[in-house]
């Protein structure tokens, strides 16, 4: 009699462990997929920037410095190694792009140019996609971590070979800062 009760308990535990393992594997794959999605969107951004720079170059001859800065920031971002490095360099690229768009506001021909508007929309969208991909990654990574760290899964998760996923954080102090807005209209 006792042996059967014992066997039943073991069977329940085994089924529970299998369920836990499969759920964690599913979540881990979603986390990996979320991470790759960020990469896909960053790549898209890198591809769009040369187009933008070429389109605005003619009208913005006087802003050669800004354009060069954007291209250089892009080159650095493309050749970044490792997530932390990439995060910092992508942040710099975002800032360089922001400066370019702010300056472009001074050129009426650019503001009304359909090509520029379309490119600007594409870049805005890509920026958003990077942001939402990070948001989704963080959401799913948090879910994955919670699944590992809550009782009773926390006793088995590391035994089954699962490690908590790292959350995406803003590593660059400049990106965390609220940009200074100057409305005094002086040149």
């Amino acid at each position: 009699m006792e042996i059967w009760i014992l066997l039943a308990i073991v069977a329940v535990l085994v089924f529970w462990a299998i369920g836990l393992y499969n759920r964690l594997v599913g979540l881990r794959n979603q986390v990996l997929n979320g991470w790759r999605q960020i990469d896909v969107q960053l790549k898209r951004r890198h591809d769009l920037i040369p187009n933008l720079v070429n389109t605005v170059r003619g009208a913005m001859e006087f802003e050669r410095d800004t354009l060069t800065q954007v291209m250089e920031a892009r080159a650095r971002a493309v050749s970044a190694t490792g997530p932390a490095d990439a995060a910092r360099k992508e942040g710099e690229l975002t800032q360089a792009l922001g400066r370019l768009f702010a300056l472009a506001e001074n050129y009426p021909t650019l503001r009304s140019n359909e090509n520029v508007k379309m490119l600007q929309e594409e870049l805005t969208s890509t920026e958003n996609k990077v942001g939402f991909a990070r948001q989704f990654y963080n959401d799913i990574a948090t879910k994955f971590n919670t699944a590992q760290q809550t009782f009773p899964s926390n006793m088995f998760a590391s035994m089954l070979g699962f490690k908590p996923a790292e959350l995406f954080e803003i590593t660059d102090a400049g990106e965390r800062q609220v940009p200074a807005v100057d409305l005094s209209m002086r040149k």
Partner: protein
Amino acid sequence: MIVFVAFLLFLGIGFDVFYIGDGELTFPIGSLTALGVGSVSALTSYYSGDRAVLLSTGAVPLDRAISTATSDDDTLKIRQFDNVVEEMSIAAGLPKPRVYIVPDTDPNAFATGRDAEHASIAVTRGLLDAVNRDELQGVVAHELSHVRNLDIRLMTVIAAMVGAIALLSDWTGRGLHRASSGRGGRDRDNGKGGAAGIILFVLWVIAIVLAPIIGQTLAMLVSRRREYLADASGAELTRNPIALANALEKIEQAHAPTTSVKRGTAHLCIADPLGRAVGLRQGWLPDLLASHPPMANRIAALKQMAYHG
């Protein structure tokens, strides 16, 4: 939802006990048949409903909308909509739904399709012209939430039950008519259950007479709940509830009926397309009959999210 199933069970078992089984509980043939007929019609709409809906609204697929765009600004707007849909599906971690534009000047939007892999999102021309990028994002997030929460599946199941309830009511209505004109007369001498049985029988007759109205009311109740849910999970995607609130305000201001959207699709739209006056007022009557909660309540709920978030 549970109320819905209970109501259907009450009607169905009552039908079988009082109408077919002469007061005895036998095999529930009547309710099963009704449910079967309701399910078949619902399944049909489940698998081909999205195409029917898109066809009936005259929705144009995105690439065709771009190729027929009248100006560069037009193209930009449509492209922007496409981008926004892609952004929101990334945020939701869903495959990108197919994208359509409805040539209608009243601002509105709807989603259709049985699951995330077969989903379509459509907005009207009027919406693209009325809202800015952030607000469009809020609207698309709302629609995508209907897809993610499987509301389309839910409303299909409910349509099946409403259908079954209507059928039961219809059959009984005819039967009672026959009985009273003296030809059938089945339920005349089935007083086996005693006083309790009679009370139940009377309750059941009242319920069956009111059934189509009650069924519809319950369906609308579920629909309104899912609207609040879609607003909330939409805000979770954009993390920007105010933008959705602003979009809702703009949609409300142009509360002319969206003529291209038919009644059957109403519960999938972001705002009641029929432009019924009840949708704008508060009180018990609109609360019972509208497919959408009052705009003011939705906007207030969203703003509250913003202040607490």
